[in-house]
């Protein structure tokens, strides 16, 4: 489940470096975040294939594949395509609200973000960091050739109360994000490892998420076949889930 959340939201905010940013140290945190956010959503309505590989200590791995349909920055549908045991399932996310559709259940079921629907280790709760929507930029600092933006959750119910986001000064590509819980403990780290060109846009193609509470547990998400696609409005309604 966590992995699905991760996929959906990371897809909704695929970073792009289609524009070259200028380093302007006078800008405040909000404007840096706003500028970075521009690059996180290269296509308003799209589909993309996602492969997620979870690594656990001892070399154990687990692979899942999905097709994600997105619209805007906060609506997405995840279609489960692999393993075969998961085929036919769909997950709808409308900002914070989530529903799962399973062929055997024949109806969308409201779920909470922590619910797991797949028996694999993953780090999907990181996906709660839909920065532009869920967080306020409080301050900006410099760390070498990166801006470091400090983000505070607008909603105290969010899994991560605080995020520190490293953004390349030149390209505004996100490089890394650290996720903290209310107690101030750093528990997750996302590293934007690879970028490539899809659908004419430079976007992230690989993200690694490390679970800092369980060393050795990490998840790598790879993106492919990003395609502009006019996803109908009604797709993103609970009652249409599994019917289109």
């Amino acid at each position, binding site marked *: 489940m966590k992995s699905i959340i991760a996929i959906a939201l990371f897809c909704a905010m695929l970073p792009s470096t289609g524009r070259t940013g200028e380093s302007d140290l006078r800008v405040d945190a909000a404007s840096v975040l706003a500028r970075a956010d521009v690059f996180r959503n290269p296509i308003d309505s799209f589909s993309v294939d996602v492969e997620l590989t979870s690594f656990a200590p001892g070399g154990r791995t687990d692979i899942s594949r999905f097709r994600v349909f997105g619209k805007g920055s906060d609506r997405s549908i995840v279609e489960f395509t692999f393993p075969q045991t998961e085929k036919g399932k769909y997950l709808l996310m409308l900002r914070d609200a989530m529903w799962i559709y399973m062929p*055997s259940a024949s109806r969308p079921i409201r779920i909470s973000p*922590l619910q797991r629907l797949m*028996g694999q280790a993953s780090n999907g709760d990181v996906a709660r960091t839909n920065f532009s929507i869920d967080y306020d930029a409080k301050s900006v600092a410099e760390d070498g050739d990166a801006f470091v933006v400090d983000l505070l959750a607008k909603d105290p119910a969010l899994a991560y109360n605080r995020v520190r986001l490293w953004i390349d000064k030149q390209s505004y590509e996100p490089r890394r994000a650290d996720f903290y819980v209310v107690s101030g403990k750093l528990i997750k780290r996302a590293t934007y490892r690879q970028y490539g060109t899809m659908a004419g846009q430079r976007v992230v193609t690989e993200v690694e998420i490390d679970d800092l509470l369980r060393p050795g547990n990490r998840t790598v998400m790879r993106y492919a076949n990003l395609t502009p696609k006019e996803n109908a409005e009604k797709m993103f*309604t609970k*009652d249409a889930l599994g*019917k289109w």
Partner: protein
Amino acid sequence: MVKPVIIAMALFATTVHAETFKFFGSAGAEWQLTPANAASALNPGNVARLPYRTGSGDAVAFLDAAPESHVWKLHLKLRGDAAEGGGQKAGIGEASLQLNPRPWLDVTIGRIIEKWGTGYAWNPTAFVSPKKNPADPTDRLSANRGIGMVRTDLFVRGTNVSLYALDHGAVAARVYRLVGGTDISLLFRRDGTATQQGISAARVFGDALELHGEVARRRALAGGQYTFKSNVNVVVELYRGGDGLDAGAFRAFRTAADSAHDEAAIRAANTAYAPLHMARNYAFVRFDLPHDKFDAELIAITNLRDGSLLARATLTRRLLANVSVYLIDTEFAGARASELSYMQVRRVTTTGARYYF
């Protein structure tokens, strides 16, 4: 209504060009041990001749076909069963054609499984849905079968309205809207004999808690789920079913069952016995723990009047990406003359394997 629709669908499929096909499903085999409960007044000395061991196989396939534009969609669910000893059957669980003449309008005709409600084990507002078994709430073998209907779905400004024309002149309607983060559905069904109305709701609080409820005439359900950081998921529900037996009616059943000594009387008592419908108030709890390639689930359902209990434990192991094996044990417990003490079997132990494609 269904057969002509299926024939029309087949003709439609031969004349149109679909660009998107989805085909998936599963096939499995399982074996059950069902030792007779000789202590039950409904099966003294195993008069019902329940077999100690049985085996069965089944396959279910889903097929969706649609053009890239999704202006129409064909949907099929096919199912076949074979039981040890020769019983075989195959059938169409669902067969529907969906047309999307406008972005805000879908019309679907055929045999459709429609499930209403937000409850996990019971759905008091499921006026057009297949009957649900609280001990198998997810229909693990996809055995549910649809009913014939014409369904019109309207998607208007965040509100979804579904109108149903059902077999035998029945009609139904459902209105759904997400109101301040809460799923709200109003539900209605009318046929020649009765009118039913209901409301269902569900809401998520924070990251881990979901609460839900349903109310219809004489039936209601309240429940919630909580997911712990350790990934343990717990579902708790309380169900009130006004159509269950009251204390007096259950006493009458007990008297008839306990005094049944000839075959006809025992058969009549068996006919009257409907487990999990012999009282009006039940509680349900489910624990689920996924761990690596294992999934452990425990379901317990208790009759709140006499405290008798059904407990089902399931352990599933995913062997490959497309193969899983499982062991399910269902036990019944309760004082003498309590509802579940009348079960004709002592327990049901099931083991099986399933291949997904």
